[in-house]
């Protein structure tokens, strides 16, 4: 019978014991004595969130396809179990074998958002491992980081042995082969890391020293090993249709955030919104073959038994065969009671037609993400969505029977003025007016326009990476101001406005563009018991503020400065393919309010065409669709 790392008493005492028992449909069991490599793959958040992540399923499938490797999963123990494990000295274990993490060769951690950093330390700590890589010898698993946060992993660099920069499908096989080879020859961590550092896309932070100016900015990076690369080039798959895909993903017993088949239809995005990191670090847009996707859909539904399928991409409306794919899914599976859930689409006749087929119009809402209230500011951020697009889309939705509209905005965007902020409630009101233009006997009651705003955080490798942030008080003032303007609108009774507290924003901002000096802050915050800080109710601003001060650092240094054009960034160690010159040019165009066309319309010369092997004379500025056409 299946063993459990936790006793029956512990499992019966904790909330949702199913988080910790493994045994799920499609989870992979192997004989640990018959594999060479044991890989523990971790998503440092609670099970229901981690299990919803596509990237882990992709890597799990990829690794377990190797006969010599057994990949297992780890998620963060919730507070109740965390306490129990500390009290009773229970070491952190992987779900499949229920064996302690410390028995593994690798601990891979996917780092999806900055506010999980303290949870990374929880994982290492509960596993019984020293937090810092330099304190871990050959007896400990090698700790690898991956995911979007590794594009500036500096604040957590000291905790990891190395980072894998880029798409997992490209080089993990080579990496595991290299490890096996070293293990056969008599493994030394130092020798292995030296060898890893020569592989494209691998960043071994211990082989680089960061020298700072007196003002805290970076003077230079010094390589501590001859063979270490500089910069480290991000890994990217050129043909996404042929990549291995998890056709039998693990199906959790308890309801995960994503309790459905997820079909990744494309990587990257043609749009080039200037605030969006994903839009830059995953360039160029690469679409999957529609026939391949249809086959995946069939197989994945069959293998999981899920009753819902959804599409995943940064901008689904840009997928060339969206109509064909969605029509296929609805036609093919509707008799089986399979629900098709649509990602945020550009609202047009097709989208409305499809949505009316798959959702209850009365209950569901139509979502727009204008991000900024005024056209001027939307041009600054290069969000190619006009007031007419929104009003016409909403108008058509109202005609189709919808009465609820959701709007997403950001406050604190570069160059934002009072007029830009006022435009938010004006836009919401204009949508409501459009609704009330419908004759009274043709409409169903009132409409409900809900606007939410978050605060903008500049991210590395975006045109806004040079931009300053604001103070907590300034953010609060902005949100209060916008709230006030909502109360002045004609249709205020049909409008709602929500905003989040800016405290998380401030700390996320510090970590996003932070440097190695922050590792002590993160450790300090963790030592004071902070965990699960992406959950607002568990986030404690005070603790972060105190620990930053204690390390002799300031929030203002990271957030309030407008960085100079010649400043060396902590993330300049990494080369994503998109050039710093392009980003700088986009930063200048932003401030001039100039839009840049999307990749299908015209090549903007971001640098990726060269990466894709397109000759310079064939690309910028001659024609569009250079990278996305093939």
């Amino acid at each position, binding site marked *: 019978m*299946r063993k459990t790392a936790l006793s029956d008493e512990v499992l019966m005492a904790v909330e949702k014991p199913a988080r910790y028992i*493994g*045994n799920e*449909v499609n989870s992979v069991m192997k004989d640990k004595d018959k594999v060479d490599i044991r890989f523990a793959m971790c998503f440092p958040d609670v099970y229901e969130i981690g299990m919803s992540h596509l990237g882990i399923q992709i890597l799990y499938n990829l690794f377990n396809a190797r006969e010599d490797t057994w990949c297992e999963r780890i998620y963060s123990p919730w507070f109740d179990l965390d306490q129990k494990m500390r009290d009773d000295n229970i070491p952190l274990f992987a779900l499949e074998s229920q064996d302690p993490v410390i028995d593994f060769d690798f601990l891979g951690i996917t780092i999806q958002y900055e506010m999980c950093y303290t949870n990374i330390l929880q994982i290492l700590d509960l596993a019984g491992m020293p937090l810092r890589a330099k304190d871990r010898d050959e007896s400990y698993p090698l700790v690898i980081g991956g995911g979007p946060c590794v594009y500036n992993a500096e604040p957590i660099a000291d905790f990891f042995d190395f980072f894998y920069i880029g798409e997992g499908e490209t080089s993990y096989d080579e990496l595991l082969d290299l490890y096996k080879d070293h293990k056969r020859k008599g493994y030394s961590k130092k020798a292995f890391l030296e060898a890893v550092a020569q592989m494209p896309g691998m960043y071994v932070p211990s082989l680089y020293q960061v020298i700072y100016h007196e003002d805290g900015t970076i003077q230079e990076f010094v390589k501590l090993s001859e063979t270490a690369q500089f910069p480290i080039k991000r890994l990217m798959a050129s043909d996404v249709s042929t990549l291995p895909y998890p056709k039998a993903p693990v199906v959790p*017993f308890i309801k995960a955030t994503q309790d459905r088949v997820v079909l990744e239809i494309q990587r990257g995005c043609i749009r080039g919104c200037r605030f969006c990191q994903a839009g830059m670090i995953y360039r160029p847009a690469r679409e999957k073959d529609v026939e391949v996707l249809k086959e995946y859909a069939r197989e994945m*539904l*069959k293998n999981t038994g*899920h009753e819902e399928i959804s599409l995943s991409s940064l901008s689904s409306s840009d997928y060339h065969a969206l109509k064909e794919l969605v029509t296929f899914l609805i036609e093919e599976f509707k008799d089986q*009671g399979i629900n098709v859930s649509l990602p945020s689409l550009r609202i047009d006749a097709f989208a409305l037609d499809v949505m009316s087929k798959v959702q*209850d119009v009365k209950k569901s809402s139509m979502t727009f993400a204008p991000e900024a209230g005024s056209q001027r500011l939307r041009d600054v951020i290069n969000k190619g969505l006009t007031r007419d697009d929104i009003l016409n889309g909403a108008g058509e939705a109202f005609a189709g029977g919808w009465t609820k509209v959701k709007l997403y905005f950001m406050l604190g965007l570069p160059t934002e003025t009072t007029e830009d902020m006022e435009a938010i409630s004006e836009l919401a009101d204009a949508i409501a007016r459009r609704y009330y233009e419908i004759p009274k006997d043709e409409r169903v009651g009132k409409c409900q326009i809900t606007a939410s705003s978050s605060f903008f955080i500049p991210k590395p490798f975006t045109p806004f990476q040079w931009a300053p942030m604001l103070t907590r008080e300034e953010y609060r003032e902005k949100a209060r101001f916008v709230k006030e303007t909502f109360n002045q609108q004609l249709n205020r009774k049909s409008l709602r406005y929500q905003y989040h507290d800016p405290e998380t924003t401030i700390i996320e901002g510090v970590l996003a563009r932070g440097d190695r000096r922050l590792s002590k802050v993160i450790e300090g915050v963790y030592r004071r018991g902070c965990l699960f800080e992406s959950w607002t109710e568990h986030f404690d601003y005070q603790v972060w503020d105190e620990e930053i001060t204690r390390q002799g650092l300031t929030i203002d240094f990271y957030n309030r400065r407008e960085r100079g054009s010649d400043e060396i960034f902590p993330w300049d160690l990494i080369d994503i393919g998109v050039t710093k010159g392009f980003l700088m040019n986009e930063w200048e165009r932003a401030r001039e309010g100039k839009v840049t066309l999307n990749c299908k319309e015209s090549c903007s010369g971001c640098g990726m065409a060269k990466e894709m092997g397109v000759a310079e004379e064939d690309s910028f500025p001659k024609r569009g669709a250079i990278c996305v056409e093939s």
Partner: protein
Amino acid sequence: MLKVRLKFSKNGVMRYIGHLDLMRYFQKAMRRANVPVALSGGYSPHMIMSFALPLSVGQTADGDYMDIALSEEIDFHQTIADLNQVMVEGIEVQDIVPVSDDRRQGGMAIVAAASYLVSFKETQEIPADWSEKCQSFMAEDEIRIVKKTKRSEKEVNIRPFIFEMRVEEGGIYLLLAAGSSANLKPDLVLKAFLDYVGAAVDTPMHFHRLDLYYREADEFRALGDVKDDRKRSLS
């Protein structure tokens, strides 16, 4: 509408899966095994299936039951095999029998009793005199316990709901009233008994459900033991 009753066992780590999650598990399993379960209407159609008597988290079972509506005929043997192909360790489909589609004959409506084997986690051995004590416990006219609800505490006599109780190999066997009209949980009986014999009431125990029963004239019959004439009338 075609209705069948599926009998399954739930063991090992599956004891930690609550009944709502188990329902979701079975819905997905039905899709994986291509069992033609009938769907309800509406925007989010769901499979028509119901458990006879949900099992508490932590308990295991040899005999748990669910009734399922089908949209077309199935081959029972083949379906049992197909389902067991897609089960996880700890859940096994034991049997499928046809049942009447009369709502009043549904598993949830007719269940009247449940049998359990209660074992003690820290010791396999049961004190020699417990057999006798079981008898005297059962000879009581009244067994009063305090039942706590959200709003109040009240004293109830549980004796009428204990049909059988005896020491068996490996534990204590219980046959208790179950279902919508009267339902007695095995842990309440054991607490009362441990108190009666002067043992610690918080002794760690494990509850294993053996089977569920409906009442037919004066006897209890297992929920999967559908009378022959009903089988005939269906075919």
